[in-house]
């Protein structure tokens, strides 16, 4: 698995076309793509959408909201569609334990095999970057790790810039911690769809740091991710 494509979880057309870009896995997003007033509708939309489509061999994930911001409802409602994994933003040891428990409840309630639904932490807070190894060990459901930059820079009070040097330590730390635990690790999404050169350079750098794949912010980025991380 190299590419994980983020899809707006409340956009029916995006859901319909999600499988067409050749991504190894799809991450249906309830977090940043969906405004607060529509989280409830989006959860139901994913619950209906997940069993509706034929995904072939692609992974089907749901990116939930942080546990303090409705993540448990996301798991309980969207989870009825039986995704293969949940992606937990701003993950730390405590919130991963909460998510693990919520998933266990979901599995029990719906007759899904215990432990069958996996968990992918997004390591993006300063504390979690520094304690990456402990975060990755927080749940036995964790089968892969994701790094994201925005929260990290925000917490540090560092200006957001195109200079990738400011992320070097954090990326290396997360990549190495995941690889040491024997897990695949995915680099941040590149939001600017038009900046193809910036995206490609960022992906090549991630590859050189030991990442095994990258999130795609749009379908057009998938082929290059698959190529660079091949």
């Amino acid at each position, binding site marked *: 698995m190299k590419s994980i494509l983020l899809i707006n979880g409340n956009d029916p057309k995006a859901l*319909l*076309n999600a499988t*067409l*870009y*050749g991504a190894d896995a799809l991450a249906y997003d309830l977090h940043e793509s969906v405004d607060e007033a529509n989280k409830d509708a989006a959860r139901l939309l994913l619950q209906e959408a997940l069993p509706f*489509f*034929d995904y072939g061999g692609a992974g089907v994930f749901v990116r939930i909201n942080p546990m303090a911001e409705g993540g448990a409802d996301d798991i309980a409602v969207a989870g009825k569609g039986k995704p293969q994994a949940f992606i937990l933003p701003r993950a730390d040891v405590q919130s991963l334990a909460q998510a693990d428990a919520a998933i266990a409840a979901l599995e029990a309630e719906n007759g899904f095999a215990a432990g069958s639904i996996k968990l992918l932490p997004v390591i993006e807070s300063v504390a979690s970057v520094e304690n990456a190894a402990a975060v990755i060990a927080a749940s036995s459901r964790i089968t892969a790790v994701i790094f994201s930059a925005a929260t990290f820079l925000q917490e540090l009070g560092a200006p957001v810039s195109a200079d990738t040097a400011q992320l070097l330590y954090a990326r290396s730390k997360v990549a190495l911690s995941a690889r040491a635990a024997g897990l695949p690790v995915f680099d941040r999404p590149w939001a600017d769809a038009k900046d193809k050169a910036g995206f490609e350079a960022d992906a090549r750098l991630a590859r050189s740091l030991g990442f095994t794949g990258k999130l795609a912010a*749009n*379908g*057009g980025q*998938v082929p290059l991710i698959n190529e660079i991380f091949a």
Partner: protein
Amino acid sequence: MKNVIGRDIPEYIEGYGEVRPFKGAYASIDSRTRTTITRRSVKPGNKLEPGETKLLASIEEAVKKTGLKDGMTVSFHHHLRNGDYVTNMVMKVIADLGIKDIHVAATGIFACHEPLVEYIKSGVITGMSVNYISPGPVAKAITKGLLPKPAVFRSHGGRPRAVEAGDLHVDVAFIAAPCCDNYGNINGTQGKSACGVLSYIYPDAQYADQVVAVTDNLVPYPACPIEITQDFVDYVVQVDSIGDPNGIVSGTTRVTSDPIGLKIAAAAAELIDATGYIREGMSFQTGAGGTSLAVAAEVKKRMQAKGVVGSFGAGGITAYFVEMLNEGLFRALFDVQDFDLVSVASAGSNPKHMAMSGSLYGNPHNCGPVVNNLDIMILGATEIDTDFNVNVVTGSDGTIMGASGGHNDTAAGSKISIVVTNLLKGRLCVLRDQVTTVTSPGETIDALVTDRGIAINPRRTDLLEKLKDSNLPIMDIHELKAIGEKLAGKPDPVEYTDRIVGVVEYRDGTVIDVVRQPR
């Protein structure tokens, strides 16, 4: 009666006449007699007196001079596309003079021709024939059955065939002329309303009883270069403007940026390559849509990688094809219309960029149209069925939204014709058990490339053999239809009345299908 592809068509259609049933795409290629016409001689000057002046004061004077009367056929071209003023101006004069029961033989109809709907309602226009029509007010009026006689839909090659055979007799052709002199020499590439070549109207210049040039750019004699020569033109009228430049050409035509369109294009190019058609001397045509142009971009990459030079690019020309010509990827272009400013400029200046008449383009009843020399054709479709029949005339609810254009000409002539489309358009699956209206018969369509899979016409065992080790997602067309229907559901049948509002002629003049009025 059912024709060979199982479409139910009457033997006689009121307002159209006897039906020659479609017998197969290649069934009627035999010798034909061309019609004879009587043309006026323009009075020459003698040593003491000047000759006849062709320049008239107004369209009204031209209509009166031609003796245009009830029941006649007038023709127009659509090279000014959605910017055309001439059709509306001429029809207004005809209506104001109280003339009725006119057949409008326009090569194309656009949204800008909305005023014609009033003339249809008032009985000025009682019949129409087109090779292209965009979804809009006139198409809606025809669907609603406002026209007393069924509209006739022909192809770009079929119309010149009909004109030359006398099936479509034009009493007066009104030719919008971006550049014209006072003795009727015309070109389309110069002036404030420049639109590029005027290919579709050449047959009318040759076979109409009378020809009137309408220009907003009267130049000193002789206009140069000349596309339509003075020996075919009876009268010249000067007006303030023949069209709105914004509607005539788009500033730019460009390759799609939609990743799904690009994915379809890449698959189509790989199919072309895998079947051996990327080769020295190859010829290639696409439509001007974003996905079609994306196929051109992908094909170009493969031509460059292989170092091959194509013989020609053809059809409606865009900046992209001009660029390929100028980069040496084609030795020449055959042009029937120009979609953007770059192609208009090229058509008027580059000798390798050649105009071709509609007859030279696609008429099956001559010594061979250019489509016979075409290798690769990229096509669109509103619907396609499991027999590979394609519809570009109606929506799946029977609403008229297009006409063949060059579709069935190029599909029949090319060595490989590929339909590229999204499998789902909204909730509608493009693939059906039966298309609503057949425009191009399945025996001329070789492949369907969609975002959710590729189907090859089983008649093309040669292609299937070449593709047997391919990684392309090739499947049976029924399987592809099942994928679409699983997502969209199976549509309920649409109900139709018995009223025939349109007759779809195949390029050889046989009737391949009819359009019935939806209930």
